[in-house]
């Protein structure tokens, strides 16, 4: 009975009561121990000896790769937002060719593996266009890939602005351009910020695939370190932590934004 009470006071959230720091820490600690136990059991079966020293010598490779991943992701994000915006608008175009093209573009890009897109773009399109800089090619590929998703995010944002608001804008005597400028876009921007931040997190992780066209980003760097040291886990564990360092703040900011821009329509 006493044990039961202790369990419930430590493990169960009571309605309407804030969870105390002590209870939080206890639960987090239990989780850490559980995972630690799980992993140490796994490693004990593997009988793997960690040799961090050999990887430490290559730390600059990892740091360079880490920075390259950030740069690639940011450049791709900017370009993909621009492209995504264009394709979102193009889907509303009254010129059918433009509308169908953007529809097809979005479906094809979202429906095929990024790996195939990277290979196709780099070895077929970029090659034919005489584009030799693989970093520029990489940014272009990631932008094309992410823009299809961003176009859908923006389109959903535009559709989310109710038809009654468009009607009201019309009754006030706003032109179409004014309606988009003053009514639709301000609401789209605040509405799409959270999913857009999520998209940035995906972009960061997806950019790891650029290593197949020998772009020296984070994942490529880890692969190289592994190839030089034969210390597989010591190369890839920092990789996972590095991606977490980038994506955790984004998911935190996303949650903040979601709360901040929540209003009813």
């Amino acid at each position, binding site marked *: 009975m006493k044990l039961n009470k202790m369990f419930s006071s430590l493990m169960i959230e009571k309605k309407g009561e804030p969870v105390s720091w002590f209870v939080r820490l206890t639960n987090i600690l239990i989780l850490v121990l559980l995972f630690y136990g799980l992993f140490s059991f796994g490693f004990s079966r593997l009988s793997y000896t960690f040799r961090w020293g050999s990887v430490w010598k290559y730390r600059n490779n990892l740091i360079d790769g880490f920075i390259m991943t950030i740069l690639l992701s940011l450049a791709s994000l900017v370009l993909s937002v621009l492209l995504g915006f264009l394709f979102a608008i193009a889907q509303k175009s009254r010129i059918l060719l433009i509308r169908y093209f953007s529809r097809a573009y979005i479906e094809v890009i979202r429906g095929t593996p990024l790996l195939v897109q990277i290979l196709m773009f780099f070895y077929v399109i970029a090659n034919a266009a005489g584009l030799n800089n693989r970093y520029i090619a990489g940014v272009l590929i990631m932008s094309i890939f992410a823009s299809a998703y961003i176009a859908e995010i923006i389109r959903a944002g535009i559709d989310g602005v109710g038809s009654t608001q468009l*009607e*009201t804008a019309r009754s*006030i*005597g706003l032109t179409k351009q004014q309606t988009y400028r003053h009514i639709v876009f*301000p609401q789209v921007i605040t509405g799409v910020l959270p999913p857009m931040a999520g998209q940035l997190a995906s972009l960061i992780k997806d950019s790891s695939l650029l290593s197949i066209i020998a772009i020296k980003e984070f994942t490529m760097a880890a692969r190289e370190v592994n190839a030089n040291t034969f210390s597989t886990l010591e190369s890839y564990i920092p990789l996972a932590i590095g991606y977490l360092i980038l994506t955790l703040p984004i998911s935190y900011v996303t949650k903040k934004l979601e709360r901040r821009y929540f*209003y009813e329509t």
Partner: protein
Amino acid sequence: MRLKIDKLTKSYGDLTVLDKLDLEIKDINSLVLIGPSGGGKTTLLRLLAGLEQPDSGSIIVNDHNLDCTEEELLTYRRDVGMVYQAYNLFPHLDALENIMLPLVHAQQIPKKEAREQALSLLERFNLAEHAFKKPVALSGGQQQRIAICRAVAIKPEILFFDEPTSALDPEYTSEVLDLIEELREDTMELILVTHEMGFAHNAADHVLFISDGGIIAQGPPSELFEQTKNERVKRFFDKVLKYN
């Protein structure tokens, strides 16, 4: 106001909402449209407000011939005001910005001047304390009064209302009707669709009873409400006034 409508027809797909409607009215200030739902009141109001184009027939409102292109209708809409059943304030703008938006972007009034006009209007209708609140923070009645301010701010030639109290909780109905009444006493020209029969009776100079795509009966409210011989109009009144 002066209205002249000639053989006005409007359909949506297979549904003919208005069928060869004729009307000629002069020298009135407030026109009220009543009638059963789906009878065509709102469609007629939207046509008069320049929000729809007729399939055929002609509409003349004061000096505006509404048989024109969408661009010309846009200019016309800048001269008139519209108030909707669901208030339709822009949710991303506060009350003041909602009123300023048409002034600045449709009427081309400088921002500073627009702001002063909007503030004095809010002041006049006892809404000044809500100037910086977003619609979500306002009651239905407050939202609707601000929506009316937005429509009045442009000094419209005619103000249109599409069931302005139908979406309101009953406790807020009177504050909105009071405001409309105040505008009427200011000799603002009004065209209203409403189900508030008491208000229609008091506020209308002329009432149209619209059903089945046409005008079934019309006249000054005293005539239409009390002495109508028309069976359909009588039945309608019996129904809507049953619990009043």
